[in-house]
């Protein structure tokens, strides 16, 4: 399971032999990749950061210093404020639904079914699709006069939801800055499509986790008189904690970057109800030619992700160093 720890089995005993050119081979092998990452990841991030501090908000390059003004303007913008609200709401709903559904499916699939492989494959196949395909298809499924609403109508629902066309935000009357806080109704359709695509990922991880729990643990609990329900919550679930952490972090970074799905499915939506920083950056930079403003959005996106990814990587590799 834990491949990080597995790699610690690599012995470190190669050091004492005399220095030869061969000793330099590993680092020479890695050198092209190191240089590429240094330029294309770190160098380009640095350059984007610099652009975000300039006046380059026209088609022609203008690198005159503008300080933090692009950032200040951004936080006053209705669209960007809506983006931050949407991103937060989307991330919470998306992660929660994926975790709950993923765990539920994993536990159900793990009941020694004869049809296990079939169900597992059905739940995971959306992962093989492009977010663009998902967006194009779900856009039709949530069209207010079609798809899901036809089923709801057949079930006797009177007030059919308008899904991604609905600009309403619930609950009413909670304003901060220029925007209303709360859950934009239009975002629900996007969450459903995203969960449809990614919950299989959570299931796959939980299933691997369930398989790695030693049977003796559950048997011991059963001997102690615990029923299946108690065994699950007292024994199995705590064992799955590291999986929950990993899955949450992976899903959170996917959520922070979400772009294609929304671009294909709804676009910015009514009153920017389904807009995201990623979409705003794309429009601002490549359609509006406000490069510095777009760079500022990109840097904020990067910071939002780095805040939890950097501690995650540090702790993962510190653990590895210790064991």
């Amino acid at each position, binding site marked *: 399971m834990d491949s990080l720890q597995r790699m610690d089995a690599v012995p470190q005993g190669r050091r004492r032999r005399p220095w030869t050119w061969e000793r330099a081979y*590993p680092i020479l092998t890695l050198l092209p990749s190191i240089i590429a990452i240094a330029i294309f990841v770190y160098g380009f991030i640095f350059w984007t950061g610099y652009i975000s501090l300039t006046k380059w908000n026209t088609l022609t390059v203008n690198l005159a210093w503008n300080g933090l003004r692009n950032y200040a303007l951004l936080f006053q913008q209705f669209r960007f404020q809506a983006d931050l609200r949407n991103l937060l709401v989307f991330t919470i709903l998306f992660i929660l639904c994926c975790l709950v559904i993923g765990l539920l499916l994993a536990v159900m699939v793990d*009941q020694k079914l004869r049809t296990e492989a079939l169900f597992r494959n059905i739940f995971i196949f959306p992962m093989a699709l492009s977010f663009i395909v998902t967006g194009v298809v779900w856009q039709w499924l949530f069209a207010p006069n079609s798809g899901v609403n036809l089923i709801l109508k057949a079930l006797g629902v009177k007030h059919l939801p308008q899904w991604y066309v609905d600009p309403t935000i619930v609950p009413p009357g909670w304003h901060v800055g220029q925007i209303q806080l709360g859950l934009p109704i239009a975002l629900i359709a996007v969450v459903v499509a995203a969960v449809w695509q990614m919950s299989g990922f959570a299931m796959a991880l939980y299933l691997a986790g369930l398989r790695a729990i030693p049977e003796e643990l559950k048997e011991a609990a059963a001997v102690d008189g615990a029923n299946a329900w108690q065994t699950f919550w007292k024994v199995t679930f705590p064992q799955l904690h590291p999986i929950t952490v990993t899955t949450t972090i992976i899903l959170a970074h996917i959520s922070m970057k979400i772009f*294609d799905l929304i671009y294909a499915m709804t676009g910015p939506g009514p009153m920017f109800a389904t807009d995201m920083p990623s979409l705003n950056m794309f429009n601002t930079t490549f359609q509006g030619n406000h490069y510095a403003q777009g760079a500022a*959005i990109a840097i904020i996106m*990067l910071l939002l992700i780095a805040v939890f990814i950097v501690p995650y990587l540090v702790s*993962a590799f510190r653990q590895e160093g210790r064991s």
Partner: protein
Amino acid sequence: MSARAVRRSLLYIILIVFACFYLMPVYVVIVTSLKSTAEIDLSRMWQLPHQLDFSSYADAFNHLAPNFWNSVYLAIPGTILSSLLGSINGYALSKWKFRGANVLFPIILFGMFIPYQSVLIPLVQFLDAIGLYNSIPGLILVHIIYGIPITTLIFRNFYAGIPDELLEAATIDGTGYWGIYRHIILPLSISGFVVVGIWQFTSIWNEFLFASTITQPPHQPVMVALQNLSGSQIVQWNVQMAGAFLAALPTLVVYIFLGRYFIRGLLAGSIKG
């Protein structure tokens, strides 16, 4: 019925309900794409076609075929080259641990978590400067570079599972760094290459952000063309559905035949998998 039988039936019912939810879009795509333009009606989305009509596939194919081939020319070299690069990187990192490797690796790995928006403006400027903007080779280069972290990660974990005794025996025999890679590591790497290859092929085929910023017609890959098709007001939605099906087909076929390896990639890509 015994309590066990009731529980089993209930379990199956819930699983089937979920399966229906996951398969619902597939049903709609297939049913709609087989209807003729005269028959498509939003209020009858769930109904089966009266008679099978493949014209929407012909239509979608006409729209997407050139872009479909662009994606093939993009995804195949991209997959092969980034798998090879990941393999030699993983070998160096897992079998020849040198000082600083444990600091260097997370620094490389961070590259797979960044939002690509944060490198996009310099990337476009750079590709423009070296003459690769709006070209498939440019896009291949981009996918190889930003694929380094994930391919290196999967191969590094994969090679950690190869016992070091094998290498030690070869070192005693006097086999060198590349000899060991060529004669010991590479022959044992087949399933590693399958996992990484599927992962890279799927990601490159499905990718949209780089594709839509770096290429313009006629060099756009299929996902960009599909998005344009769906955004177009004059294209009927049976054609859009057929287009979505065609664009998804290659990765779906890979999943159907090699799903086991796809799932291994998913787990390996989550660092601790």
